[in-house]
């Protein structure tokens, strides 16, 4: 807490200094020149004299005017990628870096913006409507591999099932950065590499459900799923290509440790020239980039730097040593400071309500846990009352400086899966009176101490969240005060995330030992629905590995979900999500709070920076440019 205070004060002072500095602040282009002057001198004190009394050294101006400096962009992020071999890393910064130094697009040449997919190196995404993807009925013999109820199993009898196949056509002119032409077989090679048990790939969900993936010509692949695998994302089943000509003699488990792991031959706009472990990755323009004829990429060099400290990163931004501060390196604490710095023309901040959303889970079956708890929230009225009594706007205003939006369902309102007509959804605007009425109705009566009770049981719950997360601490405090106002006592609990989310035989919280839990899910292209289905309710038999931490199980919701999941047509799927959200918002197993705000900042000289909530901030790295 003391540390937090000091950081705040530090930011305050920083802001004041920036404010004071405003009138004298140099235009951003001058930044580099000042820098070179400093670098020219030896001890700093001596340089002071030089700058004030002497004219600049005569060697500098000609050097500056001669050849134009290569256009360099410095992207600063808080972490270092663990590898640039995409199989086996799940770090956000790896994805970010790979988009420049390996591939074009977020995954396998397909981008993911605005919660939807866009083809990058493919001519188009296949669709059943267009005929380049199709569902066929196939006969399955007993013992064949099929998908049933979400699991890959052997068929127990002969039957007829749906099978999807999709055809992917690559664009012309694709080349690896070493100049070799990229072929469809490289994608197949990528698929096969991931099949190896030691490939290090984290999850084999799609590979396990692939019946075949083949190249039919130099630029075409065809994916066929296993029978029964009705998969809405069939149109993304183009596997990330790997350069077969480079890797064919390396065992999959050795790729990571080979040169490829840190200097991959890719097809992105840049290629890695130097990786200073722990400090930075330097990349240069890829001359073989397939869009080189369009003058892309616009930059000559990109440097990804790893700066774990937010203050340092901000200072580097202001000092002109960083051009882009990524979302993992900046947080909402810095908003007032960034706004101030923007006023003074020092940098440009961006606030985008992101794909991560915070929510409070209710434990709806607390009595069934191995360590049973008092039942407080199995009654829907109580859950609704809590929702009405929670001032989510206050949370947004106080914690996120009003930069975010309140959520009603489990996807942002801009998501395609959010019902066009949301009047069917139950909504919970802040209304403490209604909350109290609902609690009275549910039989929880206010006692002398202001806390409600029913049958001798106090309405006193513990809310648990991960330790060391400041915004969540702030949410908890507001929530606690909100609840006190309606007669609900809330105790705060901050276990480390490894304890809170620890699954396995010895699960504590995850086996149902909690009342309320505050954490976040990340919204993908597919809406977050699965985690509220019955078959995701954790059980002892599956060592508490299910993801439905609310222990809420509702047949109507499950029906809507399976309708959604088994359907491949977007227009029809939206109807099912509307059904699902109708049930969800009324039953409210979890209370969505708000979308987290992604904070980015750039030096004002950066051009074309267009962050997107569901894509990485440098998704258009080839189009980014700097003013010179």
């Amino acid at each position, binding site marked *: 807490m003391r*540390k937090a205070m*000091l950081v705040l004060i*530090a930011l305050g*002072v*920083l802001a004041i*200094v920036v404010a*004071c*500095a405003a009138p*004298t*602040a140099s235009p951003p282009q001058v930044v*580099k020149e*000042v*820098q*070179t*002057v*400093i*670098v*020219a*001198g030896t001890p*700093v004190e001596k340089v*002071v004299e030089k*700058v004030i009394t002497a004219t600049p050294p005569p060697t500098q101006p000609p050097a500056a005017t001669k050849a134009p400096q290569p256009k360099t962009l*410095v992207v600063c992020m808080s972490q*270092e990628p*663990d590898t640039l071999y995409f199989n086996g*890393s*799940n770090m956000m910064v790896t994805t970010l870096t790979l988009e420049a130094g390996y591939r074009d697009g977020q995954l396998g040449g397909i981008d993911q913006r605005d919660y939807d997919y866009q083809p990058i190196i493919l001519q188009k995404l296949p669709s059943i409507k267009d005929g380049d993807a199709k569902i066929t009925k196939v006969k399955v013999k007993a013992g064949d591999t099929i998908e049933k109820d979400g699991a890959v199993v052997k068929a127990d009898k002969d039957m007829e099932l749906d099978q999807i196949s999709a055809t992917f056509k690559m664009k012309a002119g694709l080349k690896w950065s070493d100049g070799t032409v990229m072929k469809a077989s490289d994608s197949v090679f990528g698929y096969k590499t991931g099949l190896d048990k*030691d490939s*290090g790939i*984290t*999850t*084999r*969900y*799609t590979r396990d459900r692939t019946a075949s993936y083949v190249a039919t010509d130099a630029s075409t692949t065809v994916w066929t799923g296993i029978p029964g695998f009705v998969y809405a994302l069939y149109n993304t089943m183009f596997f990330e290509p790997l350069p077969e000509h480079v890797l064919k003699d390396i065992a999959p488990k050795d790729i*990571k*440790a*080979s040169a490829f*792991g*840190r200097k991959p031959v890719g097809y992105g706009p840049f290629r890695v020239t130097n990786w200073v*472990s*722990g*400090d930075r990755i330097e990349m240069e323009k890829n001359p073989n980039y397939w869009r080189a004829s369009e003058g892309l990429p616009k930059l000559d060099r990109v440097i990804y730097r*790893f*700066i*774990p*400290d937010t*203050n*340092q*990163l901000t*200072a580097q931004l202001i*000092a002109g*040593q960083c051009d882009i501060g990524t979302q993992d390196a900046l947080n909402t604490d810095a908003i007032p400071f960034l706004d101030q710095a923007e006023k003074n023309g020092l940098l440009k901040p961006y606030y985008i309500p992101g794909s991560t959303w915070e929510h409070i889970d209710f434990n709806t079956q607390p009595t069934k846990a191995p360590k049973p708890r008092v039942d407080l929230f199995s009654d829907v009225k109580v859950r609704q009352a809590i929702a009405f009594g929670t001032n989510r706007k206050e949370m947004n205003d106080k914690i996120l400086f009003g930069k975010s939006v309140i959520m009603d369902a489990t996807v942002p309102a801009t998501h395609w899966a959010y019902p066009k007509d949301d009047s069917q959804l139950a909504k919970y605007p802040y209304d403490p009176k209604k909350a109290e009425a609902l609690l009275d109705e549910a039989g929880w009566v206010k006692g002398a101490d202001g806390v409600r009770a029913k049958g001798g049981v106090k309405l006193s719950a513990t809310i648990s969240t991960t330790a060391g997360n400041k915004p969540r601490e702030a949410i908890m405090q507001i929530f606690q005060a909100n609840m006190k106002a309606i007669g609900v006592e809330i105790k705060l609990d901050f276990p*480390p995330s*490894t304890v809170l989310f620890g699954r396995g035989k010895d699960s504590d919280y995850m086996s149902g030992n909690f009342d309320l839990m505050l954490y976040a899910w990340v919204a*993908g292209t597919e809406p*977050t629905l*699965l*985690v509220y289905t019955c078959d995701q309710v954790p059980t002892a038999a*599956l060592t508490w590995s299910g*993801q439905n931490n609310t222990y809420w199980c509702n047949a109507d919701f499950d029906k809507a979900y399976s309708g959604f999941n088994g359907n491949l047509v977007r227009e029809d799927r939206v109807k099912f999500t509307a059904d699902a959200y109708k049930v969800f918002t009324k039953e409210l197993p979890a209370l969505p709070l708000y979308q987290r705000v992604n904070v980015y900042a750039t030096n004002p000289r950066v051009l074309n920076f267009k962050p997107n909530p569901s894509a990485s901030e440098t998704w258009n790295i080839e189009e980014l440019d700097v003013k010179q």
Partner: protein
Amino acid sequence: MVNYLIRRLFSMTIVIIVSSFLIYMMLNLAPGGPLWELTQAGSSRESALTREDYARLEKMLGLDKPMHLRYIIWLAGDDWLDGGTRKGVIRGDWGESWRVAQGMSVMELISSRIGNTIILSGAALLLSLIIAIPVGIIAAVKQYSKLDYALTAFAFFGVAMPVFWFGLMLILVFSLQFKAWGLPALPPGGTESLFGPDQGSFLDRLQHLIMPAIVLSLFQTASWSRYMRSSMLEVLKQDYVRTARAKGVIERLVITKHAVRNALIPIVTVIVLSLPSLFNGAVITETIFAWNGMGRLYINALTRGDYPVLMIFLLISAILVVAANLLADVVYTFIDPRIRYS
């Protein structure tokens, strides 16, 4: 002395093996671990790790074996077991990083950081020595003078000042504010410039070193100067200092020849015991100034459950701590003739 050293080296070896075993156990028993972040991925079916996935990854890292066996493999390798290729730490096989830099050998990973760490910690150590010893002597000789009070105030400032705050203030003033005023400013962080004519030159690196070295040395300087002061005061009270004065020795020699040598004896312990920091680095300072050193590597490996990196780091740290203790004892015999080991 030789006998003594042999005995000490023997007991050191045992201490190190026992501590490495305990460290290994504690790391492995702590919640989290190398696969932790993978289990946290996502709410969708595609990104969620299944139990089969988990088991496959565990096997790949060798985490499926019982813990004591894992320790033995780590220590002595498994090439004498079925199908193993590991040689083990005692035969120089430090293994590969699991998380921080997947597939990179731990040796390579550590050597990429150790240079920066030695530069920063060494500079801070030197700075501390150069400042703390004279400051301590002067403060003691001029006890209760205004100078002494000023130096005492400095020492309290240095001890009480939180590193991250002090570092931030330096960045604020000497990087940002100086630049705003049009004065030559110091770079806010990093070990060298990324571009410009002087990139990576000695001067460039020196400029990057100044602030972190000052910040890192501040606490050490302050506390060592206090040690030195009190040690010096203690010595100045000694009879032999009076004897020296009674011989008519000039005051400067009384201080330098008679007092300082004795006063340094306890300080040398403190200094020698701080030597492992040349390897360990300084987490906070390195973080604040984006200094690419061992401290950051350690924290990174710790939070991500990169056991191979952690184990080597902690093992070397343990060896250095034990070795520094031995070194301190050996150095004693050189500076204090009263001490002899047998």
